């Protein structure tokens, strides 16, 4: 293997690292685009859109079948459905919002949990392997819904002024320090919350998928186009790829849990009584 030969070989087969462009999937079926505000907008159905609908259908079908025959001695399917429901109701609903009025929010939390969970697991399920929530638009929708719900719940309970007082004045604070605290608390509790909520889920799914692409492509490049000394590194990269894929399954569950947990915390904060 001469230097000149490898040099020419490298020039033909350069490694292009994966980037955000890998997440721009082409539309399926007919599509069109138009220009507005100096940007190009595309109209069409893409893979994440289909996945969102598929996730809704799958969650509905599973729990419909699981709860159709409600037997005293549950079948295996009914047991799994009830365990999932009980997990969300008890550890996310009752423990966070409180036993007084958590039941009103259990349908929302339950739907949200399993919808996001299935969408995240799409990143690992073979033949789909694309996390829906790595498209930021999907996550912004969920964050806006959450923002509307917790603010509406708080305003309905405390009135507009009472709610703003609850969210912006920390208990036991008086005096000129409030001039500093009220804008800060308003920023963090009303304005920034939906962004961090959305970005956390989006960036985790995005970064995880990017990492998997990087290990797969990098391993392939090292193995096929690298010098003989780096070929074993390609195999190590593929082993790491498999291990990280398992880690991702855990992260997908954990991020779902965190998203719904924060939703429940925001609702419970908006419902809290004044001290």
């Amino acid at each position, binding site marked *: 293997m001469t230097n000149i030969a490898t040099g020419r070989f490298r020039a033909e087969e350069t490694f292009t690292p994966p980037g955000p462009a890998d997440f721009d999937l082409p539309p399926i079926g007919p599509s069109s685009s138009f220009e507005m505000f100096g940007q190009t907008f595309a109209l069409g159905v893409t893979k994440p859109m289909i996945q969102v609908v598929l996730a809704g259908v799958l969650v509905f079908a599973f729990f419909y079948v699981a709860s159709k025959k409600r037997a005293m001695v549950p079948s295996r399917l009914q047991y799994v459905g009830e365990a999932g429901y009980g997990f969300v109701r008890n550890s996310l609903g009752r*423990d*966070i919002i409180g036993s007084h009025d958590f039941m009103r929010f259990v349908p929302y939390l339950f739907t949200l949990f399993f919808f996001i969970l299935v969408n995240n697991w799409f990143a690992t399920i073979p033949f789909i392997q694309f996390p829906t929530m790595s498209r930021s638009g999907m996550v912004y929708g969920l964050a806006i819904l959450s923002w509307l719900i917790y603010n509406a719940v708080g305003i309905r309970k405390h009135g507009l002024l009472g709610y703003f007082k609850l969210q912006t004045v920390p208990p036991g604070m008086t005096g000129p320090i409030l001039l500093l605290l009220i804008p800060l608390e308003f920023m963090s509790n009303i304005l920034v919350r939906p962004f961090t909520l959305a970005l956390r889920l989006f960036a985790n799914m995005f970064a995880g998928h990017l990492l998997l692409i990087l290990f797969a492509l990098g391993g392939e490049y090292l193995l096929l186009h690298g010098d003989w000394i780096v070929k074993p590194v390609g195999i190590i990269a593929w082993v790491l790829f498999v291990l990280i894929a398992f880690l991702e399954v855990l992260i997908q569950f954990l991020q779902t849990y965190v998203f719904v*947990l924060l939703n429940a915390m925001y609702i419970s904060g908006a419902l809290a009584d004044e001290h």
Partner: protein
Amino acid sequence: MNGEINGSLNMIGYGLAAIGPGVGIGLIFAAYISGVARQPEAQGRLQTIAILGFALAEALAIIGIALAFVLS
């Protein structure tokens, strides 16, 4: 063989910025583990608090990765 490296310096900055949340998350789970070791029956309550703290510390790393891609 020329030692040319291409890429964005942003990513090195992001790597440095991720140290902070990394240390923070480590401290949170260290406190959680020692709390459960002292009082195993409090695990349920501590778990929620630990995961909440983890999520808040992780938000810093997430903001970092968003900025690393946005700024160029």
